């Protein structure tokens, strides 16, 4: 289990103290696909940074499988907004970077990387640089790089927000497959209500405010079922999430 207990995050700004998180608690079960949804600036991304260990909380503790988080973990993969690809590395080098950083020898990582590139359908562009790829391809590279690390926790910050509708749906399905296939614990931040209901086995609705508040928690047990997107239940869940967000004051453009 992942446990965020009594976490505080504060910083000083022009003589006053801003509380982003104040005594925040959250539990995530192994194999869960948790989606965080809420208006811009509500602290969703910050929560990912806290979970990844890139940003330490100013108070409280975060434990992952019983181990307190102190800095980045080997088994946590984090896909940042805008994919976090390195423009000076080609697809192959980007995908293998995580392994190279971990001092794996070329002989060992070459096969792993090649397999992942094929699996993600990037074989034809593996020598291309990020600037030569489409948005969907870039996202696949980011996914491939995260998955080669064989993570037990995958964090994603608005991974599909910059994509066109069709590519987006295709990648949502891919994410769902990966989650189901590997029983991977994932935490995903999104602006899209449909995406939240399509991908999250549990959805947390966060409210803009200092500190961040959880205004709703929706269990979504039917996630991953064939044709879920077309069911009445799916529609009911999206309407519910929408109503929670409207109460919280989500701006129109973000819907």
């Amino acid at each position, binding site marked *: 289990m992942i446990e965020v207990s009594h976490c505080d995050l504060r910083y000083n700004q022009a003589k006053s103290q801003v509380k982003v998180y104040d005594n925040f608690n959250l539990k995530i079960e192994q194999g869960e696909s948790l989606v965080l949804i809420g208006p811009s600036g509500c602290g969703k991304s910050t929560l990912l940074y806290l979970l990844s260990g890139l940003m330490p909380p100013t108070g409280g503790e975060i434990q992952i499988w019983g181990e307190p988080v102190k800095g980045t973990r080997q088994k946590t993969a984090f896909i940042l907004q805008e994919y976090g690809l390195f423009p*000076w590395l080609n697809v192959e080098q980007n995908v293998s970077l995580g392994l190279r950083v971990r001092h794996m020898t070329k002989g060992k990582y070459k096969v792993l990387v090649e397999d992942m590139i094929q699996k993600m359908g990037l074989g034809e562009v593996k020598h291309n640089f990020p600037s030569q790829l489409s948005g969907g391809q870039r996202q696949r590279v980011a996914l491939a790089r995260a998955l080669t690390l064989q993570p037990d926790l995958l964090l994603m910050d608005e991974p599909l927000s910059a994509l066109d509708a069709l590519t987006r749906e295709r990648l949502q399905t891919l994410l769902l497959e990966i989650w189901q296939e590997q029983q991977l614990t994932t935490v995903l931040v999104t602006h899209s209500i449909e995406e939240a209901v399509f991908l999250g086995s549990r959805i947390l609705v966060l409210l803009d405010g200092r500190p961040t508040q959880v205004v709703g928690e929706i269990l979504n047990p039917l996630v991953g079922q064939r044709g879920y997107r077309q069911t009445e239940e799916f529609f009911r869940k999206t309407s519910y999430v929408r109503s929670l967000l409207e109460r919280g004051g989500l701006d129109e453009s973000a819907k």
Partner: protein
Amino acid sequence: MNLRSRILRGKFWGYIGAAIFLVVLWQYAAWSLKNPLLPTPKAAILATARLFEADLGRHFWVSTYRVVLSTLTALLVGLPLGLIMGFERSIDRFLAPLVYITYPIPKIVFLPLILLFLGLGDASKIFLITFIVFFQILVTTRDAVRRVQSETISSLRSLGGNRAQVYRYVLLPASLPDVLTSLRLSMGTAIAVLFFAESFATTEGLGYFIMDSWSRAAPDEMFAGIIMMALLGVGLFIVVDFFDNILCRWQHLKGN
């Protein structure tokens, strides 16, 4: 690949065309001025060929070696220091004021002092050029590192990268295009400083050769020196371009 070689061939003919244009302009100027101080291109090229075997080649070599060694030294010191100053705020806070005060001082005014301490040989010239180029590389690298987005660094750290790996995999490649641009600009400065440093109290180098021919009133020989100086500059430019094409290929792709 085909496109690449076509572009390269186009570039090559562009350079040839530009060279021919300059020679024609020179020829025209020599004809219209009719002044013995400005020899025709033919006279200058013949002098170059004649003198190269004698001692012009040696002077060329000495100058090349001085400017290359100084630039490399400046790069070896300026690049790491620039990376560190750009990334480590605490070190930058301490060093930045020092750089800001010393950067605008024309370092060339220290030449007499440098000659006094390092003597008339290679050391003083190499030191002076290194000193000047070093500052340009330092400031460019530092500013380039500062422009690296924190997300890019977070991305590497989230992959498990430590501090040293942030330098190796993010800061160095991100600043390299700017470093090469500043290196290209520094080449002009380096050669100008080289000429100045070689033009007195020495008996070796193209600067000496040019000033010596001038004082002996041998304009064709002087122009032979100028041609070699120009070739040195162009040659160094091509070397930097070569590294730019290999190391920063991602910068030159369609869509960038």
